[in-house]
């Protein structure tokens, strides 16, 4: 069968195809639920869930393989806005969003919600400042825009460097997440899980480039959103908050605030447990003082500006048929992302309430320690070292500060905590896997494309034929993926730290060269180059300086409370100053470039870069 991947009839068929797919996935879920009731062991269910979903992604990936440049780099520019919105949402929501976000809100309360605001509001910047103009430009990659707008091989090369630094930092975190979930679901060691996860990721992106990644990402979005919402709604109904908990969980927050002083939340544990933490932060109370508010908004700023600078997100908007579609698809992306993000605090709230409210049968805090230790989910997670219960004051009752856990397990463990059947846990594992895989796919492709298109084709060998370019891209995918898995298996940093750093790297180097390329005609090559180099360099130095206060380049205390998660603020300031100052030292761009920018600013008409270059 020859599958048609472009054109009107393909687009009109998409809702039907993905409707069928969603139905099939729900049927599989129902089948697993029935089999569980018939006595299929929990482990087998977990394995089936992960294998089944990865199998589907691989199937789509193989079906949509291509050797055409336009299809490989930008999915033939034929992805309708709603579907591009779903694909971007999957591209965007990583293991950190799916697995770690609700857990972060659970443990750190209000202050962690800076990530929620930051990871949604950034799309306003994407839509108003960038996406439509980059689409009109008609580039294949983000460095392609920088290289053509400003001219010169050095600017293109600098953009490739920033892209690779930011994306590689990010991708190791995603491979770590796939490894963790694969290890838990398939019962294999973490180091093996990492390579297993990588194999799944590569199958989707190797053969079909952007086209394959797009259509698997849509499939992955559907799995991950279903997997996030089903347990939430289930818990909400059980706890009596109705089927649309996002609008009704206010009283649950109130109840937690009422219980907190009774349970003594905020008392530090008698003895800390390395690697795990006890719940000591209040659920909703923002820390007092201007410094806390400043820390909140600076983190929001880093995440937002980082969003608007991350190449694997921006390149998704190159795939729509028109500029108007690019704008619409940003709005749809935000909508689909919003569905998960505004649910995360609700999930954290219900999960906490089910653990601490003494009137619920699932409560463990304030219960005899013997009974708690006998629970199977406590035993399972304790066994792999991600949870611990210790009666530190020896009174035989579990206090809130005697319960230690790794916050990343909240989402994965919540179904078991809340007493839901294991089939839900299998579903959540599949969802987490989808989230991490889809992001890793987008990142690997962004890097491989930049290296093959910009570095190899545009800089090293401009005469390279199509076949050779696409082959290079695939070999690079393998190489970068393997390097990422190798770094991930060393477990250098946590998932969240690596993600925040990636945002800060991207914003330090790329934000102003991209924005000013559209909005400031005067911006020239020398200025852009200075902006990228100085921004990346200063940001990187500040990261190292804050983390190593005693080194010769170190600084004793962070400036204005800007710690390592917020180094982008320093980098981007340096980038802006350098770019503006150097731009004024050199003449304005020539007339041809100025005309090109005029053309860039109106939606209709041909793209700036020819379709076959």
């Amino acid at each position: 069968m020859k599958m048609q991947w472009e054109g009107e009839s393909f687009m009109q068929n998409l809702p039907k195809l993905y409707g069928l797919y969603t139905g099939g996935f729900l049927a599989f879920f129902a089948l697993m639920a029935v089999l569980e009731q018939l006595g299929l062991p929990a482990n087998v269910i977990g394995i089936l869930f992960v294998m089944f979903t990865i199998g589907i992604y691989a199937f789509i990936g193989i079906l949509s393989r291509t050797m055409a440049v336009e299809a490989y780099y930008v999915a033939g520019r034929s992805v309708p806005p709603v579907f591009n919105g779903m694909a971007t949402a999957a591209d965007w929501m990583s293991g950190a969003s799916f697995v770690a976000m609700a857990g972060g809100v659970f443990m750190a309360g209000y202050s962690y919600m800076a990530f929620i605001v930051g990871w949604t509001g950034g799309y306003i910047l994407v839509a108003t400042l960038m996406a439509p103009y980059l689409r009109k430009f008609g580039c294949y990659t983000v460095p392609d825009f920088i290289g053509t707008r400003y001219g010169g091989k050095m600017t293109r090369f600098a953009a490739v460097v920033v892209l690779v630094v930011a994306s590689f930092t990010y991708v190791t975190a995603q491979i770590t997440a796939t490894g963790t979930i694969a290890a838990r679901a398939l019962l294999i060691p973490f180091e093996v899980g990492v390579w297993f996860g990588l194999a799944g990721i590569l199958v989707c992106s190797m053969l079909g480039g952007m086209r394959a990644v797009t259509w698997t990402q849509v499939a992955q979005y559907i799995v991950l959103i279903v997997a996030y919402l089903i347990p939430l709604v289930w818990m909400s109904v059980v706890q009596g908050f109705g089927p649309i908990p996002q609008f009704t969980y206010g009283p649950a927050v109130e109840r937690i605030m009422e219980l907190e002083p009774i349970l003594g939340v905020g008392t530090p544990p008698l003895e800390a447990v390395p690697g795990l933490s006890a719940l000591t932060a209040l659920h909703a109370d923002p820390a007092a003082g201007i410094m806390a508010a400043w820390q909140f908004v600076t983190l929001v700023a880093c995440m937002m500006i980082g969003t608007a600078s991350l190449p694997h997100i921006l390149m998704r908007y190159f795939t729509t048929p028109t500029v108007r579609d690019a704008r619409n698809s940003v709005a749809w992306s935000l909508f689909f992302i919003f569905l998960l993000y505004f649910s995360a605090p609700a999930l954290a709230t219900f999960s906490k309430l089910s653990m601490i409210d003494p009137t619920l049968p699932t409560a463990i805090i304030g219960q005899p320690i013997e009974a708690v230790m006998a629970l199977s989910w406590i035993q399972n997670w304790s066994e792999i070292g991600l949870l611990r219960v210790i009666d530190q004051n020896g009174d035989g009752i579990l206090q809130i500060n005697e319960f230690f856990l790794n916050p990343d397990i909240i989402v994965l463990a919540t179904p078991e905590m809340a007493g839901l059947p294991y089939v839900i846990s299998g579903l959540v594992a599949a969802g987490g896997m989808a989230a991490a895989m889809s992001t890793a796919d987008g990142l690997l492709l962004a890097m491989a494309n930049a290296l093959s298109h910009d570095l190899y084709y545009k800089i090293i060998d401009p005469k390279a034929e199509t076949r050779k370019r696409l082959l290079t891209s695939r070999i690079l995918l393998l190489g970068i993926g393997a390097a990422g898995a190798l770094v991930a298996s060393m477990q250098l940093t946590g998932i969240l730290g690596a993600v925040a750093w990636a945002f800060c790297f991207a914003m330090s180097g790329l934000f102003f060269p991209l924005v000013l390329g559209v909005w400031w005609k005067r911006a020239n090559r020398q200025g852009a180059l200075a902006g990228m180099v100085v921004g990346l360099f200063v940001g990187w130095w500040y990261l190292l300086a804050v983390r190593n206060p005693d080194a010769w380049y170190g600084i004793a205390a962070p400036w204005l409370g800007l710690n390592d998660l917020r180094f982008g603020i320093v980098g981007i300031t340096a980038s802006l100053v350098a770019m503006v100052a150097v731009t004024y030292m050199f003449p304005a761009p020539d007339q041809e470039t100025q005309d090109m920018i005029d053309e860039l600013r109106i939606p209709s008409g041909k793209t700036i870069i020819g379709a076959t270059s």
Partner: protein
Amino acid sequence: MAQLSAVDRAEHWRRTRNLMIGHLVVWFIFSFGVHMFADQLYYVNFFGWPLSYYLAAQGSLIVFVVQLFLFNRQQNAIDVQFGVDEASHAIK
């Protein structure tokens, strides 16, 4: 496009830019403005949520989503007025 006069081109861009600035002002208020006062808003009860919590968990997000669909309509209206609009590929 060639048929767009220099005056129209400048006017189209001026209105596009003003629209962008307007939306970024709203964005700024809901990204940073309200959260600077979390300390005070905490004591306002909003259907059970402390208002500061609600804004960070949902309020700002809802504003962003609505804002973006509105922005698209407004920008498209500007493009239509200057004859530089394009077809949409929304699923029918």
